[in-house]
C-alpha cells in the first residue's frame, strides 16, 4: 500500500486535501460534509488506518457531546423545540448545528491524518527543497526537534525530580518556576542541535548550488485523475455557491429540500466518484501463480 501511496505525486495529494479542506470549511450542508467523509474514510481504511480512524471518532464523541450541551444551553435560536427545561427552550436547530460543527472539526483532523498517510515526509522534503530549499531545511530541522524535545523533557523531569524538584506543586507561578531549569536546558540543547545540523548540512554542500532531486516523481495518469477530479469538485462547489444553490443555514429552517437539492446532490455524487477513483488508484495488483 505504501508503494501505491508513494506513486501519487506530492502536488496532487496537496491539491486533493486542500480542496477537501475548503469544502469542509465553506459548507454547512450535512449532505456535502457527509460526502467529504467518504473519500477520506476510503483512503484511511485502504491504507490500514481503520483503527486510527475508529480511535479518532471515539475520542471525538465526548467533544461532540460537550459542544452539543454548550450550544443547547447558550443558543436559543431555532423553531423546532425538542424540550423545555426551567422555562428554557432547547431547539433541534441548535442541536444539529453543534453536531455538524463537531463533525466538521473531526473532518479537518481526518484531512490532516489523510495528508500524513498520503505524503511521505522525506518525499515532501525532497519536493519542496527543490522549490524552496531554505524554508524547507528550516522546517525540517524544527520538525525533527519537537519529538526530541519531548523525549528530553521526560528525561529531564526524572533528573530534576531526583534533585528534589516537586513537579506536582500547586499554583501556576510555582509550576512555571519548577519548569524553568528544564526549559533552559532544552533551549540551549535545541540551539546547539540546530547549529550542529546546520553545520553538517553546510559541509554536505546544502545551498551550494541548484539541487537535483533523488527519485523525482513524475505526474502519472493517476495524478491527472486526482487533479482533474479535485478541480471539478472545487469548480462545481464554487458555481453552486455563486448560484446560491447551497445556502443552507440550519437556524433559518430545517427543511429537507434545503439539505437535499441539486447542488448538494451533485457535490455528494462527485465526492462519491472521487472515493471510487481513489480506491481504484490504491487497489493492489494481484499476482497469480500460473
Amino acid at each position, binding site marked *: 500500500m505504501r508503494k501505491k501511496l508513494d506513486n501519487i505525486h506530492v502536488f496532487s495529494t496537496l491539491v486533493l486535501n486542500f480542496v477537501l479542506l475548503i469544502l469542509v470549511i465553506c459548507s454547512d450542508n450535512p449532505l456535502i460534509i457527509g460526502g467529504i467523509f467518504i473519500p477520506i474514510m476510503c483512503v484511511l481504511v485502504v491504507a490500514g488506518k481503520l483503527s486510527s480512524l475508529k480511535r479518532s471518532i471515539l475520542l471525538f464523541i465526548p467533544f461532540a457531546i460537550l459542544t452539543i450541551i454548550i450550544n443547547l444551553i447558550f443558543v436559543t435560536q431555532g423553531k423546532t423545540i425538542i424540550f423545555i427545561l426551567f422555562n428554557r427552550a432547547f431547539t433541534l436547530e441548535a442541536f444539529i448545528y453543534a453536531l455538524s460543527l463537531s463533525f466538521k472539526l473531526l473532518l479537518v483532523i481526518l484531512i490532516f491524518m489523510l495528508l500524513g498517510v498520503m505524503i*511521505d*515526509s*522525506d518525499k515532501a*522534503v*525532497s519536493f519542496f*527543497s*527543490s522549490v524552496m530549499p531554505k524554508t524547507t*531545511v528550516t522546517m*525540517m*530541522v524544527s520538525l*525533527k526537534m519537537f*519529538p*526530541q524535545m519531548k523525549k528530553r523533557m521526560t*528525561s*529531564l523531569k*526524572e*533528573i530534576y*525530580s*531526583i*534533585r*528534589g*524538584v*516537586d513537579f506536582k506543586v500547586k499554583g501556576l507561578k510555582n509550576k512555571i518556576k519548577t519548569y*524553568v*531549569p528544564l526549559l*533552559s*536546558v532544552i533551549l*540551549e*540543547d535545541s540551539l546547539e*542541535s540546530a547549529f*550542529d*545540523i*546546520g*553545520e*553538517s*548540512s*553546510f*559541509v*554536505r*554542500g*546544502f*545551498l*551550494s*548550488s*541548484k*539541487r*537535483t*532531486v*533523488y*527519485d*523525482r516523481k513524475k505526474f502519472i495518469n493517476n495524478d491527472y485523475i486526482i487533479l482533474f477530479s479535485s478541480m471539478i469538485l472545487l469548480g462545481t462547489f464554487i458555481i453552486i455557491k455563486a448560484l446560491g444553490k447551497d445556502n443552507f443555514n440550519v437556524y433559518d429552517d430545517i427543511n429537507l429540500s434545503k439539505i437535499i437539492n441539486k447542488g448538494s446532490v451533485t457535490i455528494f455524487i462527485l465526492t462519491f466518484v472521487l472515493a471510487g477513483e481513489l480506491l481504484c488508484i490504491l487497489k493492489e495488483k494481484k499476482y497469480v501463480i500460473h
Partner: protein
Amino acid sequence: MSYIKLENLDYYYPREKIKTLNNINFAVDQGDIVLITGKSGSGKSTLAKCITGAVPDFYGGIVGGNVYIKGENIRNISQKERAKEITMVFQDPERQLTMNRVHREIAFGLENVGTPEEKIKRRVFESLQFTNISHIAYRDIVSLSGGEKQKVAITAALSYMPNCIILDEPTSQLDPSAADEVCAIIKKINIELGITIIVIEQRVDRWFDLADKISVMEDGNIIFYGEKESYYRSLDKRLLDFMPTYLKFAKLLKIEQIPEDLKQMRNSIKKLKFKNPIDEVKNSGDIIIDIKHLFCTYEDYEAVKDLNVSIKKGDFIGILGANGAGKSTFMKAIMGIKKYSGSIKVLGREVAKLKLRDIAGTIGYVSQNPNDYLTKETVYEEIKFTLDNFNINDYTLIDEVLKSFDIYDVKDKNPRDLSGGQRQRVAIASIMVVKPKILMLDEPTRGLDIKIKENLGKMLKKINNQGTTVLLITHDTDFAGEFCSEFMLMFSGEKVAIGNREEVLGNGIFYTTTINKLIRSREKNIFTLKQAQELYVENEETK
C-alpha cells in the same frame, strides 16, 4: 605535492581573544589514514573544520595562514566543489542526519551538490551495499541504533565518492561492538577505495593500528606529527597519554622495536613472567540493595528479566553490557523512576512504596550528560539549588562538597564555562551534596579525555572509600577494570555474570581489559597497566 597542506594556520573564534589554532603546519598525503589526537579543547575539531571550510565560512572568526587542497587555496574552491572533495562525519549521529529514511539521507548530500539525477540512485544503493547496510535502506532513522545511525552518516559521506573523509570522534557515542564495526568500515573505505581518512579521537586504542600517521595537539599547537615509529620512540612524555595501552606497556618494558599490533605485542612478551596477583579481599558489608525477581519493560519489550542481585554497602560495581542490555532500565528501576515487578529493597524498604524524594535522599543518580544538571549562574548556586529543593538550610555542605570534588576554586564561575571534567564534577557534586548512601552513574566517561577520565575514576574511588556504594554503567572496560571492585555483566536484560574482577573479567572473552587480553595466556588475573607493571618479572628478553 601533499594532498592537504596547512600553512602557518592561525584561528580565533568570533569574539575570542585567545587563538584556538596557533601556527599550524600540517600536510596529509593522498590515501593516508591520519589520526589526530589530544586533550579536549586542544583544537582538533577546529583543525578539521578548517579543512572542510566550515571555519571560517560557517563559524566566522579570524583566520591567518592558508589551507591548500591539491595545491589550490581553499578560499578559491567553491562550497559545492569542496563538499564533493572533502566531507565530514560528526561525533553525534543524532545531530547530523536530516532526513527521515535511510536511503533519502544518503541521497541528501548528492542532491545538494547537484549530482545528475540518473546517477543518484546507483550511488545511494552502491554505498549502502559497500557499508553492508542495504537491509536498512528503507528504515526510519529514528528506529536505528546509535551504531547503525553512525554507519548511515559514514555511508552518506561515502556516497559522494570524495577524496577525503574526516571523522570527528565517530565512535565516542557507541558501544564497543558498534565502534569496532565502524572502524572496520573505515578501514575498508581506505583500503578498497583509496579515500584519505582523517580521524579525530581522544581514545586511540581502536584507531592507532589503522593509522599511517599520528598527530597530537595541545593548546592549539601540533606537538607531534609523524610516523608511528617515531611517535613510539619519542621521549616527549606528553605523548604517552595518547598511546594505546599495549604500546604504553611496551614502553614500560623498554621494548625497542614498536610492536605493530596487539598480536605482535603478545609475541614480544610471550616469555615474560608475572608474579601472582594478591587475591582481592571480598567485601563483607551489609546488604544495601536487595533485588529479587526483577522484571522491567522498556517501550514494548522486556528490558530486564528475572534479575536477582544483592549489593553490599561499600561495593563499587561496574555494570557492563551492550547497548539495549537493560543496564539503564535496571538503574532507573532502582531509582524508582521505572515501573517494575518483583522486589527492590533499598536499606530494607521497597522502592515502589517510597516517594522519589525519599529515594533521592538515599540514592544519587547521575545521567549521561552533565549539561543536564547545569542551569544556574554559578557553580555555588547550582549546588545550593539541590539543597533548597530538599529544604536543607545547612549551606556549609556546599563548601564541603565543592572542596571534596576539587571545584571550590571555580565556585563563582558559570558552570557552562567549565571544562568537560569540571562540569562532570559539578553534576556529581549537585547530587552528592545531600549525602546519599548510594551513587549511581550512567556512562560517566562518555566523551571524556584520558586525564579527565582518570581524575573522575580517582574521585569516585575516594567517595567509595568514604563509604558510599557506587554503581556505574560503562562500556569502558579498561576504566571499570581499574576502578571498580565488583562487576555485573548483562545481556538481553539478564544478569549473566557477577563477581569481582577475577570472576567476571578474568573469565571474559570480549568484556575484559586490554591488558588482560594481552597477557591472560600468561597470567589471567592481571587487568591494569599498573598491575602489569608491578607484577612482571624482568627477564633477559625484555632488556
